[in-house]
């Protein structure tokens, strides 16, 4: 039977673990609120951009003069996979889910005989992919020091991706991130960045022009050529914001579970501790009584 002391030590240790998980849970909750706000604030820009793009893009698709960012390079040989995760763990399945989805996609591409290059945003994604696809990883962008995701960070990544595209280093770019649905549900999502996906804007509110038509200054194709690179940055920015909100949501849930679990363990240990203590008291009493009786 374990000694009373070892029980006391274990209970104390689980209690301090519970304090930590509880604190992390509260921190994640407050950071989640800020991350959610940032995601909501970023929406108007992305929506308006998308609306203009889909207006312009729809007319340009299939046009021989369409910009390369919209039409693609005409090849489909080299894929750039951008995996956006977090730098830290303790967030349940958050990083694992994104990495898993990315890994399946990479496996599929490799099976089709395509070349895959990986750009990891966040350390955890790189760690998860390093074992299987270490040779394909170009670089990792660490977010360690960055407190809140700023557009500048996204812009830098976009510039880099666009430079690589200009240099013909890849044909198709996809980004993996986790879409924030609610505190308890984050959906790993795959989105194609290059060539740009032009969808008919359903969500974005359309504007009634009252019969008038837009004047473009300069012409449509030039606006499109200016807008598409910006759009890549905006999309990356959006993915990073969604990711930040998802991360804190996942962390909050995970830490909540851990806190509750620690509580259960403490209860169980306390019961065992008390039982052992009583058994020892009983044993000592029996010893005394039987000793007295023997006299």
């Amino acid at each position, binding site marked *: 039977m374990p000694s009373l002391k070892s029980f006391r030590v274990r209970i104390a240790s689980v209690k301090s673990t519970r304090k930590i998980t509880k604190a992390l849970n509260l921190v994640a909750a407050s950071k989640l609120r800020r991350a959610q706000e*940032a995601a909501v604030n*970023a929406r108007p820009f*992305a929506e308006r951009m998308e609306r203009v793009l889909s207006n312009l893009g729809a007319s340009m698709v299939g046009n021989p003069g369409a910009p390369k960012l919209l039409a693609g390079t005409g090849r489909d040989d080299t894929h750039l996979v951008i995996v956006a995760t977090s730098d830290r763990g303790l967030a349940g399945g958050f990083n694992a889910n994104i990495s898993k989805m990315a890994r399946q996609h990479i496996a599929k591409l490799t099976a089709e005989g395509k070349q895959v290059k990986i750009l990891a945003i966040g350390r955890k994604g790189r760690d998860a992919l390093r074992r299987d696809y270490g040779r394909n990883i170009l670089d990792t962008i660490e977010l360690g020091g960055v407190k809140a995701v700023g*557009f500048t960070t996204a812009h830098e990544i976009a510039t880099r991706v666009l430079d690589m595209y200009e240099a013909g280093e890849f044909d198709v770019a996809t980004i993996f991130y986790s879409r924030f649905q609610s505190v308890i549900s984050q959906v790993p999502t795959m989105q194609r960045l290059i060539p740009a996906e032009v969808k008919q804007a359903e969500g974005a509110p359309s504007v*009634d*022009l009252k019969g008038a038509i*837009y004047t473009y200054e300069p012409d449509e194709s030039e606006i499109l050529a200016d807008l598409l690179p910006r759009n890549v940055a905006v999309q990356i920015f959006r993915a990073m914001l969604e990711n930040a909100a998802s991360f804190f949501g996942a962390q909050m849930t995970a830490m909540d579970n851990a806190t509750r679990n620690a509580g259960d363990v403490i209860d169980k240990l306390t019961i065992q501790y008390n039982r052992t203590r009583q058994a020892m008291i009983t044993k000592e009493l029996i010893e005394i009584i039987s000793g007295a009786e023997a006299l």
Partner: protein
Amino acid sequence: MAEKFQFDLVSPEKLLYSAHAEQVVVPGVEGDFGVLAGHAPLISIVRTGLVEVKGSEDGDLRIFVRGGLAEVTPAGLTLLAEEAMPFEDLSAADLDGRIKNLEEDVADAKDDRAKNRASEALDQLRQVRALLN
């Protein structure tokens, strides 16, 4: 008093400024253009420069913007800018730093396209810098 219209200035991070204004002068790539209420629908690329807002609730103000898009609809004017700040907050030292960076970019540009782009941005920034004195 002139009729007012809705003016929104949006950055990728948030809605920066929203007001009713009588007139807004936007630095388009093909020249500045003034927007009054009832302007015809227009989409234009915006160059680095100053947006002048006249007759808004906050009086007249000037805002520095870099890179973006202006969209005029019957509902009003929306300006999507990658970066924006009030003209008063702009510091000469900051601008000089950027101009220097761009000068280096022009010098380092590998091909004509990159060179054109950098020198265009440089010209625009220099114009703003000239206004600051």
